[in-house]
C-alpha cells in the first residue's frame, strides 16, 4: 500500500512490513524522499543475484562445478534503505529567535486535533531550502524515528520539513475582500 503526500514531501508509504524496536511494535516503515535531505534513497532489493561464476570465485577452496547456474543468496541483513517513523507532529511557528524557534505542535501519531504542545527547535535543524519558510505561521512536519543503514544497523533521526503550501491567488484574495465588505455591511456597530 502506498500513498503520496505532496505537502510534506514524504512519499511512498509502505505498509508491507513491520518491525520491532526496543521491545515496542513499531509503526509502518516509510521511505522519505525530501529533496536534498534524504537520510537515504531506495536503490537495491532484498535479494542479491550472483552468477554461478561469481559464486564460484567467491567460494575459493570449495568443490568446483562444471555447470554455470544462477545462485540466489539471501542476505542476512536487508540493505533496503528505509526509516521507521516513531512519532510525527504537525507544527506551526509562533516565534523565531536567534538560535531557536518556538512552535505549537499537534501530535499526528496520536491523531490529536489541537495544538496543545509546544517546543523550541534549533534553527540549525532546518535545511537551507526551508529557511525561507521559517517565519511565524510557517507550517511544518516533524518526524522522529530510526534509519536503517546498509548492513542492518540503525541510527536515530529527526527531520523538520516545512510544508510547501500553495500560494494565495488573486481570486481568493478578492473573494475574501468582497465577503468582508458584505459582513461589515451586515453588522451595525455603535
Amino acid at each position, binding site marked *: 500500500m502506498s500513498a503520496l503526500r505532496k505537502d510534506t514531501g514524504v512519499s511512498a508509504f509502505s505498509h508491507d512490513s513491520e518491525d520491532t524496536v526496543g521491545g515496542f511494535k513499531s509503526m509502518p516503515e516509510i521511505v522519505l524522499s525530501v529533496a536534498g535531505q534524504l537520510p537515504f534513497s531506495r536503490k537495491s532489493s532484498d535479494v542479491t543475484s550472483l552468477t554461478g561464476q561469481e559464486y564460484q570465485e567467491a567460494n575459493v577452496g570449495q568443490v568446483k562445478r562444471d555447470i554455470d547456474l544462477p545462485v540466489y543468496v539471501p542476505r542476512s541483513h536487508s540493505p533496503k534503505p528505509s526509516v521507521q517513523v516513531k512519532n510525527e507532529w504537525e507544527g506551526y511557528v509562533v516565534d523565531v*529567535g536567534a538560535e531557536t524557534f518556538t512552535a505549537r505542535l499537534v501530535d499526528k501519531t496520536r491523531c490529536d486535533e489541537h495544538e496543545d504542545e509546544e517546543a523550541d527547535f534549533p534553527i540549525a535543524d532546518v535545511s537551507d531550502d526551508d529557511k525561507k519558510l521559517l517565519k511565524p505561521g*510557517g507550517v511544518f512536519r516533524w518526524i522522529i524515528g530510526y534509519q536503517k543503514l546498509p548492513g542492518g544497523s540503525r541510527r536515530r533521526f529527526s527531520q523538520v520539513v516545512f510544508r510547501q503550501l500553495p500560494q494565495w491567488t488573486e481570486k481568493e484574495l478578492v473573494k*475574501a475582500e468582497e465577503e*468582508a465588505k458584505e*459582513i*461589515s455591511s451586515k453588522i451595525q456597530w455603535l
Partner: protein
Amino acid sequence: MALTAPLDTELEVTLLGPGLGECQLIHLGAGNWVVVDSCIDSHTSQPAAIAYLERIGVDPRKAVKLVVATHWHDDHIRGLSEVLECCSDARFCCSVALCESEFVAAVLKYEGQKNVAGGPGVREIRNIYKILEERSSVFPPIKALADRVVYQVPEEMSGHGRVCRVWTLSPSDEQLEKFYVELTNLMPSVKETKRRAVPQDPNHVSIATLVEVGEHSILLGGDLEETGNPLTGWSMIVSSQARPQVKSSVFKIPHHGSENAHCDDVWATMLEDNPLAILTPYNRGVKKRPSQDDVARISYFTENGYSTAQIKVAKTKKKRERDVEKMINDVVGKIRAVSVGTGMIRLRRNMSDLESNWDVELFDGACDLSKACL
C-alpha cells in the same frame, strides 16, 4: 471555600487563567455581569467564564450583559465566540480596529485557506462575526475607543444604589494608525505562500478598561503596552482628561506583568496606594512572564500582588515510548504543554457596608505574587 454567587450588593472581580489565556468576570451588582476576554478552563475544556458562572449557579445566558475582547491574541480570545453565543443577552465590544473591513478581510483570507487552518484566533473572530451578523440588529456591538462609556447600569438597577459604568480607555487614534501599518504586514498578497495567522507584539490596539462603581473603580489593563509616546499606550491614558479622574483599588496588571507594559505614572495617578494587583502568568515560549525582576518591580508598588498560577514549565502529560522520549529530548529538550491548570483569584466587596474592604480568595493554584516564580 464555597463557590456561591455574589450577593446583589457585592462587587466581584474574578481573574481566571492561564489555562489557554486569561479571562476576567466583573459582577457590577444585582446579577449584572461583564466578561472581559476568554480562556479555556483546563479542568472542563469549557470557556472558563461559562464554567465559572455555572459553578456558582449563575445562568450566563441572562446574567452577562457585556462581552469585551481586548485584542485578538490567542491567549485572550480562546472560546470567546462560545461565550458570546451562550450569553444571548450580551452586547459585544472590541477595539475599533477589529471592526474595520480591512481586518475582516485579513481574517477571511486566513480562515478561508483550504490547505491549512488559519489559527485559533482567526477562527474565533470569524465565528464572532457570524454571531454578530445575526444579533447586531437586536444587540448592536460596540466599538471600543479611548474614553468611551460602553456599558452602564443605573443606580436603581445596580443593587447597591450606585451607578456603574464600564469605560474603554484605548485605543487612541495614533494606536490605530500603527495597527493599520501592522495589518498590511499581516495581510497576505498574491503569490505569497500560505501560512497561519500569528498576531505579533506589540499590543497597540489592546483595550484597557475602567469599571466605575460609584466612588470605587477597577482598572483592567488588558495587554496594553507602554511606549513612552504620549499619544499611545499607557502614557496616552494617563494624560487623558476625558477619562474619569479616579484612583482604582484593583489593577489587573497588563501583559502578564511584563516590563514593556509598566508605566510609573499609572501607579502614581490612576491607582490607590497599595492596590490589589492581580495577573495571570504567561507560561509558554522562551519569554515567561512575569520574570523575577517583574515580580520585584510590581512588589515595589504594592504588597497585595497575586498570580493565578506559579510560573513554571508546564510538562506535557502525554505518555510516549521511552525511545521516543529520548529522541525528543535529544532534539528539543522537553515538550511543554500549552495549557496549564487554570487558577482563580476572586475579589469581593460588599457595597452596602461602607466599612468593608476587598475579600481575596485564591483557588486552584493561585498564589501570592511573591511565590509566583519558583
